[in-house]
């Protein structure tokens, strides 16, 4: 079992938790050591996985999933611990480990109870990694919820502002989503095989059997898509996002916006679309409307916010809406764009939240009206913030541009007027994004210094620089050389497109 490399993505966080368990709450250095070592190992592991994956593809290994492994778990219900990755999951793992790495440094001076913080943090990452490696929907769902619940304590204990309210709201709304999701998964399980066949939770087998009756597909599609859509901040189920992010501590916002919200998109893609292609063809339009709305809606509401984190949360609503939007376009290019957008949004939002956290840690306010001219005071952070902003408004050379363009050009391939209208509406968001990003940059970084107390503030420390530089390098890397990502994931769409087309016939 441990011969399979993927298992280690779960094992290492568990080891991380064990190691933390041994540390004393006071010994900050020991805790940091554990975190840094483990997160670095994870990062290395995922990079290695990525390289090896590409190597195998080069060698012409064309299986849908690589490194597959399956171990019986709950035999009576045929529940396995089944793992396997394709290009998409590999990239998601890479993203997650990058953000865990950055998050570790971003929460270098966390207090109080650093040990418990990192314990929950590690549990959260366990869930995230487990979700991305598993191809058994039961296991997937388990890891999904494992990733959700630590948010409550992380926000509630270490958060700021109306943390209790926000934490409760976030947890309950996401759990509400997963309630629908659970029902959908149960339905999928009980229809996963033709009459008399061996029922299964395994994604590959389910898609191979393709035995779900149309009317069931429609219901289950709605359940699963809404279930994941809640986590994907789909309108109108997005309201946990602003409050939750606003109150969460830095690293948690990073991980949550950076990775957790990707679970939504990934799940929609991997389960809702892939396992229920017929329903996807029929019902996609409903959710295209919703996600189309959330793209524009999020962007517009971001324009009037004054709290940095609210601005970012709403822009996340807009950008994640774009992910789901692209997935629903049901063609390879758009889905590629969706994956790119997940990566890009993950990295840049993480960067945003990291910077906001650092700025807040200095100025003790997140209200842009009370800040100004910070570029003069903390040039490094200012420049990073600008880069993040440019990435978010889609400046070429940074990841956002590539993702959005791929989405637009992919979505535009659906030639009917309905799709066209929504694509063009989505396209408009790039202008609105520019508006609110420049608004923030102008108020926050440029112009005269608002508060003379800020003049004493210092620029970033080494660990903050490390955390931000990591993210910026990834953003620029994707932005400048996007094509390798296409090559990584190109195989992954073939089966899904095949399923969709065969369903369409």
């Amino acid at each position, binding site marked *: 079992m441990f011969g399979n490399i993927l298992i280690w993505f779960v094992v290492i966080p568990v080891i991380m938790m064990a190691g933390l368990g041994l540390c004393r709450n006071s010994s900050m250095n020991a805790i940091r050591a554990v975190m840094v070592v483990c997160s670095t190992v994870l990062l290395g592991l995922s990079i290695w996985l990525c390289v090896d994956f590409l190597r195998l593809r080069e060698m012409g290994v064309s299986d849908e999933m690589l490194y597959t492994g399956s171990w019986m*778990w*709950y*035999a*009576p*219900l045929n529940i396995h611990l089944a793992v396997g990755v394709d290009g998409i999951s590999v990239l998601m793992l890479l993203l997650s480990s990058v953000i865990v790495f950055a998050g570790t440094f971003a929460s270098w001076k966390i207090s109080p*109870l650093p040990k418990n913080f990192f314990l929950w943090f590690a549990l959260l990452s366990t869930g995230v990694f487990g979700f991305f490696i598993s191809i058994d929907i*039961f296991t997937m*769902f*388990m*890891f999904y*919820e*494992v990733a959700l*619940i630590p948010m*409550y*304590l992380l926000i*509630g*204990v270490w958060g700021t502002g109306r*943390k*209790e309210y926000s*934490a*409760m709201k976030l*947890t*309950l709304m996401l*759990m*509400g989503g997963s*309630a*629908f999701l*659970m*029902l959908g998964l*149960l*339905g999928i*399980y*009980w229809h996963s095989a033709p009459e008399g066949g061996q029922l299964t939770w395994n994604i590959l087998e389910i898609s191979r059997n393709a035995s779900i009756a149309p009317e069931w597909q429609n219901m289950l599609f709605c359940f699963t898509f809404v279930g994941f859509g809640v986590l994907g901040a789909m309108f109108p189920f997005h309201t946990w996002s602003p409050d939750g992010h606003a109150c969460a501590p830095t690293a948690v916002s990073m991980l949550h916006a950076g990775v957790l919200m990707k679970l939504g998109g990934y799940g929609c893609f991997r389960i809702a679309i892939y396992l229920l292609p017929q329903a996807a063809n029929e019902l996609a339009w409903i959710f295209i409307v919703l996600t189309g709305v959330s793209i524009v809606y999020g962007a517009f509401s971001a324009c009037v916010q004054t709290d940095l984190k609210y601005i970012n949360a709403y822009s996340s609503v807009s950008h994640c809406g774009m992910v789901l939007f692209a997935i629903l376009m049901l063609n390879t290019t758009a889905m590629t764009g969706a994956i790119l957008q997940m990566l890009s949004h993950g990295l840049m939002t993480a960067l945003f939240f990291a910077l906001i956290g650092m700025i807040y840690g200095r100025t003790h306010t997140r209200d842009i009206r009370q800040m100004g001219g910070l570029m003069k005071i903390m040039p490094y952070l200012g420049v990073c913030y600008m880069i993040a902003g440019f990435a978010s408004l889609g400046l070429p050379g940074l990841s956002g541009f590539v993702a959005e363009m791929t989405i637009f050009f992919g979505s535009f391939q659906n030639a009917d007027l309905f799709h066209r209208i929504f694509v063009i509406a989505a396209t408009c968001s790039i202008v609105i994004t520019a508006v609110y990003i420049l608004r923030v940059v102008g108020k926050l970084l440029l112009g005269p210094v608002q508060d003379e107390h800020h003049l004493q503030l210092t620029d970033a420390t080494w660990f903050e620089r490390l955390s931000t530089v990591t993210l910026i390098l990834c953003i620029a890397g994707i932005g400048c050389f996007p094509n390798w990502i296409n090559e990584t994931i190109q195989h992954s769409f073939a089966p899904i497109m095949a399923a969709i087309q065969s369903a369409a016939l």
Partner: protein
Amino acid sequence: MDYSQFGSMIPELIVLGIFMLVFLFDTFSNEKGKKILTPLTTILFALGTVAIWIVPASGEMVFGGMYINDTATNALKAILNVGVFIVFLQSSKWVESDEVAIRKGEFYELILVTLFGMYLMVSARHFLLFIIGLESASLPLAALVAFNKKHYESHEAAIKYIMTAVFSSAVLLAGLSFVYAFSGGSLYFDDIAITIGQGGMSGLLIIALAFVLAGIGFKLSLVPFHLWTADVYQGAPTAITSYLSVISKGAAAFAFFVIFVQCFGAVYSDAWEWMLYGVIILTITVGNLFAVRQKNMKRFMAFSSVSQAGYIMLGAMAADGLGLAGMMFYIFVYVVSNLGAFAVISTIEENTGKLDMDDYNGLHKTNPWLSFAMTLAMFSLAGIPPFAGFFSKILIFTSVTGSGSWALYMLVLIALINTIISLYYYLLVVKAMWISSEEPKIGSFSSACSNRVALWLCIAGIVFFGLVPYIYQYCYDAVRDSLAFLLIF
């Protein structure tokens, strides 16, 4: 008559044996001897528990089929024993307190007797034996509830319990008398199953079913037969409350399943599926709604246990082997999780006498381990992975949706939505302990060794037995192998 038949009642004999030993020792030992009564009982019981786990079930029907000891019943008894053992551990400090020290023998004896009754209830395949088991399981409990002589609440709880209990047993008897009318003269489950299958529905039978449902639902505290629960749980000594909340519920749930599936299985889809459907929805929802605003921890746990009973009953809804296995697993998980919570509550009560949720504010500052254990218990009760509660919930949901009817999917949806409400109030406890910024009201103390052991056992169960499918597999195999369920497999 062939006395060798008793030989197949191994679990009962073990419990009875322990009871006799404790009774005799308690009666004839001197003051010094009394000191070792607690450890003695606990150790004996531990041995008994192990024995029940390892001794294979004879799997034969005795006394003309009145009693059966097959793998399933054996498995359930084993699970109950684990629970009782934990209860003994966590109560062993309380029984040494001046107020109850002199009566601790009675405490153990009564508990053992009720346990014996539950065994009979579980193993009964004839209504007479079932009634005897039920009553001998419920009457001594009244005495136990009244155990705190000095506390008025204890008496109020006791009177409420005994009155409603007798009322419900009256209703149950009435219901059974109607069933008897259909039974073709025999009160064996199997015979009744046949005759009812032939007879078909009638108004009288429906009333009979409703009354039986009410009678057993009372033990399970299904809404609307649950109203005694909160008051009794609150008033009773914490040890008794935890015993009530898990053990008698578990036994009753199993008995419910046996009676309704085996005996009334023929009219499942005609009649009692829908009765149960409504009752389960009510139970889960009302339990949650009441729990939302509770401040007293024991009362809070009472309502949470009401809604948990609803989830347990989902297994009966499925009415097949998967459902029973799921139900038994759920009972086990519920035992460890609930007892974990009660272990914390009773420890805090014994050491500080505090019982309000507000007293728990900022608990993690003074008692990090207790807070940690409580958090795990709450998460497990709420069904959060990777803790056992998640798996028990999902497995039981899976078994319910198995039949693939829309109604059952909707039932599961309602149950799932209710888990969100339950998550809300479980998180309230977590919030009080971890998030609330107030100064802790409870000073830091070191709890008794026995309590710690109990707590560790619960935590181990919560953490491992979800990730390790052993228990579920055990229940499943037990159910599959048991003869009694041939008809539903």
